Every structure is written in C-alpha cells, then in structure tokens.
C-alpha cells in the first residue's frame, strides 16, 4: 500500500471544548488528563471501506426508507447535500456518510426518547450513502423539529441533523451536527456553544440553497464537510522513540 504520509495533526482549537459546564453531561464525561499526542501510524492512517453492494436504493431517502417506499413522512421536504473534502481541498470519494435525526415534531424513533410529541408512523430518521468520485453526497429528508432536553431550566436543541463521516482512515473519523440557516435557537444552545470559535460554528450552519431545490417538491440545504488531510512531505526523518 502506498504511504500517503501522516495525517495533519488535529487542531483542537477548531473543535469543541471537552469540558463545558453549560452542557452538563460533559462535566463528568470529559477527561481531566491531557491527551497523548503521537504522529499517526498505520492504525490511524488506514480505515474501513464499504462497498456499494451493501446499500439499498432508499438508504439515502429518509422520506421513504422507513416504510420501504410505501408512504412518505410528514414535514418540510428538503434535500441535504454537499461535498466531503479534506483540509487540502481534495474531494474524499467513496466514503460513508451516515445521518440521523428527529422527525418534524422533534421526536426521535429511539426507545429512550419519551418526548410527548408523537412519532410519525412513516418516518424512521436514519440514512446513509457513499460519496461519489467528486466527494458529493445527497439525502432527501424532512426538516427535523427543535426539541427540549433536560439540561438547564429550559433548553431546546436547534433543528439539527447528526452526521457521521469515515473518510479513508480511522484517524479522520468524525461525528458532527448540521444546523439550519436562520435558526434563532443556535446562539442559545449550550452544545453549539462548546465550539468557541464562532467562524467554526458557522461552518456547521447549512445555508438555504434555492438553486438545488426543486419546484413544487423540496427545498435544499448545502452542507460541506472537511476532514483531516494528509501531510505530503519529501522528508520523513525518524522521530525520537519511533
């Protein structure tokens, strides 16, 4: 296998604070000890691959996939689309993108969600797809509703879709959340606030994309995702301890 070079070290300043008291659950679940840093090796630079054959035709269509196409979900029909790129602006082709979300009323189809908003019998809330050769992906879904959660006195999550991306190596593994342009709950959310760098938080907010919407059918939101890149170098000097 070709050595593509080590991964670019993760810039933790661009990521959320692990310990963020306003997000109460983080208080007991964030490490006190500093992380150990290591140049990436084979364990971080390789990763799982997934063949097209294991995916069903409706896997990226959340409007229809829970009922296997029998009946559509209720809600604001949207196309969520974008590209997966690396830090060097190269597309990441054939990589797995998975999403999950609440229904239009903010209720998840999970045995632990007991919010009084009803389930939609035609909506499951789960999708997956592989990016194409240009790193492009798309999902058809409904816009999820905001929902309350027991944190501080009266906290509500903004509308969001959870996104999980693999990239081509285990060290690129990323889970994040996509928010929607103009949602007034974003600045109130303690989970969004874990990202201190405001311009980084803005990168999780998907703009309305009328050019990709379809008349009389769905609106569109664009969400590009950037994964860690590889450091291409001519000089690989043996480091201390390696």
């Amino acid at each position, binding site marked *: *296998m070709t*050595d593509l070079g*080590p991964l670019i070290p*993760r*810039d933790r300043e*661009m*990521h*959320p604070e*692990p310990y*963020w008291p306003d*997000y109460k659950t*983080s*208080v*007991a*679940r*964030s*490490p006190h*000890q500093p992380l*150990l840093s*290591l140049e990436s*090796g*084979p*364990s*971080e630079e*390789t*990763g*799982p*691959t997934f063949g097209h054959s*294991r995916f069903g035709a409706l896997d990226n269509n959340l409007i229809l996939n829970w009922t296997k196409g029998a009946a559509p979900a209720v809600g604001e029909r949207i196309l969520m689309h974008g590209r997966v*790129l690396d*830090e060097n602006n190269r597309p990441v082709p054939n990589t797995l993108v*998975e*999403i*999950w979300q609440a229904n239009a009323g903010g209720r998840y189809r*999970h045995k*632990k969600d007991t919010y009084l908003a009803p389930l939609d019998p035609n909506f*499951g809330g*789960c*999708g*997956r797809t592989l990016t194409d050769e240009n790193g492009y992906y798309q999902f058809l879904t409904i816009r999820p509703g905001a929902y309350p959660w027991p944190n501080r006195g009266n906290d509500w999550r903004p509308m969001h879709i*959870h996104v*999980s991306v693999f990239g081509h190596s*285990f060290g690129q*593994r*990323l*889970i*994040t959340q996509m928010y929607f342009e103009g949602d007034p709950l974003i600045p109130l959310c303690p*989970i*969004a606030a874990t*990202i201190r760098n405001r311009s*980084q*938080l803005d990168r999780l907010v998907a703009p309305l994309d009328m050019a990709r919407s379809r008349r009389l059918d769905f609106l569109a939101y664009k969400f590009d*995702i*950037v994964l*860690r*890149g590889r450091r291409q170098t001519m000089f690989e000097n*043996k*480091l201390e*301890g*390696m």
Partner: protein
Amino acid sequence: MVQPLSHQPETPSQTAGPYVHIGLMPTYAGNPGYYDEEIGVSPVAEGAQGQVIEIVGSVYDGTGWALRDALIESWQADSAGLFPGQDGADPAVSGHCRFAADAVTGEFTLRTVKPGPVPSRYGRAFAPHISLWIVARGINIGLQTRIYFEDEDNEGDPLLSRIEQRPRVNTLIAKKIGDGRYRFDIRLQG
C-alpha cells in the same frame, strides 16, 4: 497582509448525543430491519486467522457510573499485523466493529481475533493493539484510545514508551480474565 493558506480547517465535532444508535446501530436502538445489512456488526468473518478473543468492559464517567449510552468503534490489523486493504491482509478480517454499552448493565463485549504487531513507518513495531473511538452524549469530540494486552510484549511499543507516568500505561492494557478473554475498562475521568 500575508498570502492566504490554501488549506481549510477541519469541520468541528459535536457530540453524538443520546440517540446515536438510531443512526449507527438501528437494531440496538429498537429499529431492527431498518437496513438490509448494518455496518460493523463484526470485525471478523468465519475463517479469520489467529486467536479468537473476547474483550469485555465498561466506560465509566467521573462519578464511577458506567455509561449506558456509549457507542464504540474499533479498528485493528489481522493476526499478521496487516490492515484490510494492505497486500496479503487476511480477507476474513474487515477490522472494523461497532458495539454499544448494554442499556441495562453498561457492559460491552468485543469479539474478534487478536491482532499481530504492526510495523511503524520507521521500522519499529507497535505491540498488538486495537484502536478504539468512543462517542456518547456529553463527549464533544470522539475519544481515541487503544487496547493493548497484558500477555503480549509491550516493552518496546512506541506509543506506550512515550507515556511518562507509568500508571497511565496500565490504563491501556487489557487484563486477562480467562482463556482468550480480557477485561478492558475505560475511565473517562478521575
């Protein structure tokens, strides 16, 4: 002004939240049959070379309570130390597994084959290990760690030898609790 850099920062992480299993392990979330085939059900298929092992453990928070909602992914080499996709790698080893803490007990189980030593870019080998990535509600960015094995030679491992405080090394080593059985507890804090 200086020249602009052409690279762009990584997309920031966010917590996977309490319902991560809906998206990544639908059967576990109570939605069996969502997909014809789920991802990462087992890191090995029938006929994988090497010693079959089982690792059990829990993920504990700072109060000593085992998380009931953690989701873990593992990534590993085959018994010869080759990763899937590398020349000569065992085709029965996909190397990737997703597993969850039990919703009642908080205990997880990983069944796999023990990986072989993995050579580093510079020649020195990493002792046999399994990489883990842990996400859950309250964890804002996925936590990376490794499982090493107490019955392997971990002496020269480039990662373990970098750790100054030797008690921290012990936290990365699975304890043998039986023939091919190990215990690996993860303490997030404290």
